[in-house]
């Protein structure tokens, strides 16, 4: 498992990085933590003549509150995200999701931006981004723009990033009020890819009616998926009227192209997915009730 030879570039700024991207086009790939890319290179499943290492660009590493969002620099290691107090306070879904991301060794090198740009359908951070309607900040020589999560994940390992664009940061909206958050994931072993899982956020009003709900699903499609049916079903209802089992079941409707592979059939994934959403609903609503 030795990769083919390539040219290695380490720009110091985002501007340099996007310049290199434009120069090399298809022949270049952004490298951050390398936890997804490097194995593919080593197994020769892919090859790029140029790797552009952005892992040390200062402007891409950081976590800070910006208006009502928590901004996470794209090259911020997962481990930092998981340990950060601001994140734990303002975007608890990220804190809850991080321990599921591989193993701690992977989290020390893997980055939040890398995970989102790689867009694995079983990824934890993409599901959180989707559940919270995060915005992906993107830069190229042509300028900057922000892409909403619902428009970002377009297919298996495909995003709406153009070939000359690099993800520079992600803004996660902060939910305030009576909120509850939960991440439930089922995998074969600790640290494995999710077979089915969810990142769930719920907000209640004073009468225990659901005012907001975001449910991101992992492992149940070629991309992370919003369980929109379940979200729409619960909003406006009092949580005493809803059972976790119902919410789990509805969350599994409207899903298309559920994976079927060595780990299980689509039917199995639906069963597990429903159970994960049910458990997450129970935990999140309990937290919201106490808030």
């Amino acid at each position: 498992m030795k990769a083919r030879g390539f040219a290695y570039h380490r720009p110091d700024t985002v501007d340099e990085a996007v310049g290199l991207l434009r120069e090399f086009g298809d022949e270049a790939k952004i490298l951050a933590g390398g936890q997804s890319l490097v194995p593919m290179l080593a197994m020769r499943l892919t090859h790029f003549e140029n790797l552009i290492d952005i892992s040390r660009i200062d402007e891409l590493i950081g976590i800070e509150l910006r208006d009502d969002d928590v901004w996470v620099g794209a090259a911020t290691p997962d481990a930092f995200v998981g340990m950060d107090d601001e994140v734990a306070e303002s975007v608890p879904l990220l804190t809850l999701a991080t321990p599921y991301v591989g193993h701690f060794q992977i989290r020390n090198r893997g980055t939040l931006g890398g995970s989102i740009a790689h867009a694995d359908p079983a990824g934890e951070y993409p599901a959180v981004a989707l559940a919270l309607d995060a915005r992906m900040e993107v830069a190229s020589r042509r300028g900057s723009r922000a892409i909403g999560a619902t428009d970002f994940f377009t297919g298996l390992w495909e995003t709406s990033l153009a070939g000359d664009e690099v993800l520079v940061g992600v803004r996660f909206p902060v939910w305030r009020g009576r909120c509850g958050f939960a991440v439930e994931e089922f995998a074969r072993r600790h640290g494995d890819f999710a077979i089915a899982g969810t990142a769930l956020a719920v907000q209640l009003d004073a009468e225990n009616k659901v005012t907001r709900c975001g449910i991101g699903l992992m492992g149940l499609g070629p991309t992370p998926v919003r369980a929109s049916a379940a979200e729409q079903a619960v909003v406006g209802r009092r949580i005493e009227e809803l059972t976790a089992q119902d919410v789990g079941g509805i969350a599994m409707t409207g899903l298309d192209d559920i994976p079927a592979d060595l780990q299980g059939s689509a039917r199995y994934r639906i069963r597990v997915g429903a159970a994960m959403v049910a458990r997450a609903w129970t935990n999140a609503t309990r937290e919201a009730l106490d808030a």
Partner: protein
Amino acid sequence: MTVTARYAGTRVARVEDTRLLTGKGTFVDDIQRPGMLHACFVRSPFAHAAIKRIDPTEALSLPGVIAVFTADDLNQDVREAWHAVTGKDVPDTPRPPLAEGEVKFVGDPVALVVAENRYLAEDAADLVDVEYVQLPAVADFRTVVGGDEDVPVVHAAYPDNIAGGMAGAPPDEELFATAAHVVKERIYQQMYVPVPIETRGIVVEWTSATNELTIWASTQTPHELRAFGARLLGIPAQGVRVIVRDTGGGFGQKVVPMREDMCLMLAARKVPSALKWIEDRRENLVSAGQSRHVDGTVRMAFDDDGKILAADIDFVQDVGSYPTPYPVLTTAAIGMFFPGPYRVPKSSFSYKTVFSNTPGLHAYRGPWQYETLTREMLLDIAARKIGMDPVELRRINILRGDEMPFVNPNGMPYDNCAPADTFEQAVKILDHEGFRKEQADALAQGRYIGLGFSAYIEPTGAATGHLATEGATVRMEPTGKINVYVNGGSSGNSIETTVVQLTADALGADIGDVSTIQGDTAVTPYGAGTQGSRSAPMTAGAVNEAGTILRNQILAMAAHRLGVEQDDIELAGSRATVRDDPDKSVSFAEIAYRSYYEPAQLGGISPTLEATARFNSQSMIHWANATHACTCEVDIETGHVTLTRYIVSEDVGPMINPNVVEGQVAGGTVQGIGGALLEKLAYDDAGNPQASTFVDYLLPTATEVPVIEFGHVEIPGPGVGGYKGAGEGGAIGSPPAVINAINDALAPLGVTVTQLPATPAAIVELIEAQSGKDH
């Protein structure tokens, strides 16, 4: 007796650990030779295809690429290719070094690329242009036996794809027809593999000036590799030297040299310098081999009281395309050991071994363990059918110590063991009755927890052919320090530590003064290596033989020097001391100095402070046995199984080092847990391997396995010190303990797992199917 056993039986820290844990081990990939070149194999992408043409032109045009060898270049140089374990007269299945005319599994080596470094070699391998014509493949060995005319043929010489088979006396069908209780199950065990942490590898260096071949290898059997290499190339064995320092796990995958090793040895004389091949993990999972893939039907008949009347096993084993020598040999053991450690009056077996277009069968730690898997699963199923607790059913059938020697219905002479003792110890450690209460409470809360037992008996240290003897050289150096030389094969099983303990005891030396040298064929006596759980009993025997001679030499010199009789002397702590007059003593260092530098003062005693001897084991088999007990909880929504407790109660005789025994048992147990729940070398219908990386081939990790609790029973075996083999047992007893725990947990739902592995998805499917029936 002038020697006290001071180290044997104690938890001495391993001598291997310091270098291994600080990254200073010397594995094959650490070997660097001047001008060394690197090898990479071009491998077949098809499970079965004809090779039309191999064009290396583009590959050879890359700078730094030295050669591309094909079957035409290498295969004809083979002089002899038989292995000692089968002998030269037993007809063998095909095993060409490189694929000849046809490829027979995905990963089949087709060409050998040699380049200045591995990166270049892989670049070149991608450019070797091979034209194939794809042929239909046998991806699933279960399609072979069943009479379908359209099954493709793997080897032309075996048109029915049957490699071999055997049957004992036929089953007593009348008994099965009339017995009070009869159970029958079809049980399938998946293909899974040892996955040693160090993949296969070899460095070969031919010195043409002296016609000598030096081999550094990752192997369990350095001397046999040397002998095989010499025969392969038709050169005198004196001209071949194998050097093994550290091997990172073997488990049977590294017992005999494989086709890639053959290719490297054949290429050695055709390249200008040393040549290294290190397999990567994908290659290891795709092409190193396969094991444990068996499908069969088992039956047991019981009387009214639950006593076993008869047992029958009828099965088919997958041997892949290029099995390592004589697969029929260990497969026969499945039938022979099926009665297990129980009082079984009648037992019958019949089996076939069949080819498929998958990698060849190789040995894997307790290769016959399908007999324990099926028997123990069947006993639990029988217990539930009869209405007895599985513990009770075993209790009334398991053999007691006072029944030894006991000849099982297939002629296996059990002795020096008491399976009932290990069984009862396991039951006690578990608190079986307490668990049943806990289980009932859990069920009332809608939780499913279960308990599984498994008992087995295994042959260790079998004295057949070249496995029956073991040599040792023990030498006191001029400084008084001791070196012990044994053949080696240390691959994580601590045989450096145990031989040092045994030698220190044999001579009365302080353990800090004893070192071992193993694995270098130029320096160590011949030995069959580490396999078949033989190292403990055989090394103990060899050290005893050589150690006794050297001890007598030391005593003679000491007696003369101290002016007493030999019987008056005690050897301990690297000193010879007069028992009744402790002030009168002389150190080993002083004895050695005189012998080497002042021999005139020895008073006529021979200045020989070394001894070489061979131990010839008179014990056909050392019987070890154990009972495994496992508790689990099954999450019926996801099918996930959590193991909550795991107990191994074993008898390997007195233990040279309890840490080593427990380590061996634990390692094997975890491999068995992997086989029960996680590991599967899966193939699709076209014969493509699906589990080619650790993303898909799932090994148990620390988070999947509970702390393993041990109980020891120490019934001496027939050999020196009473030591019995400890290497394989863990991997034998574990899969059924886990499966039985799952089946016990799910019994209220009417679910029985009979196909391994018991994955969450498979368990859910069974639960859904069963509840579908119930509605």
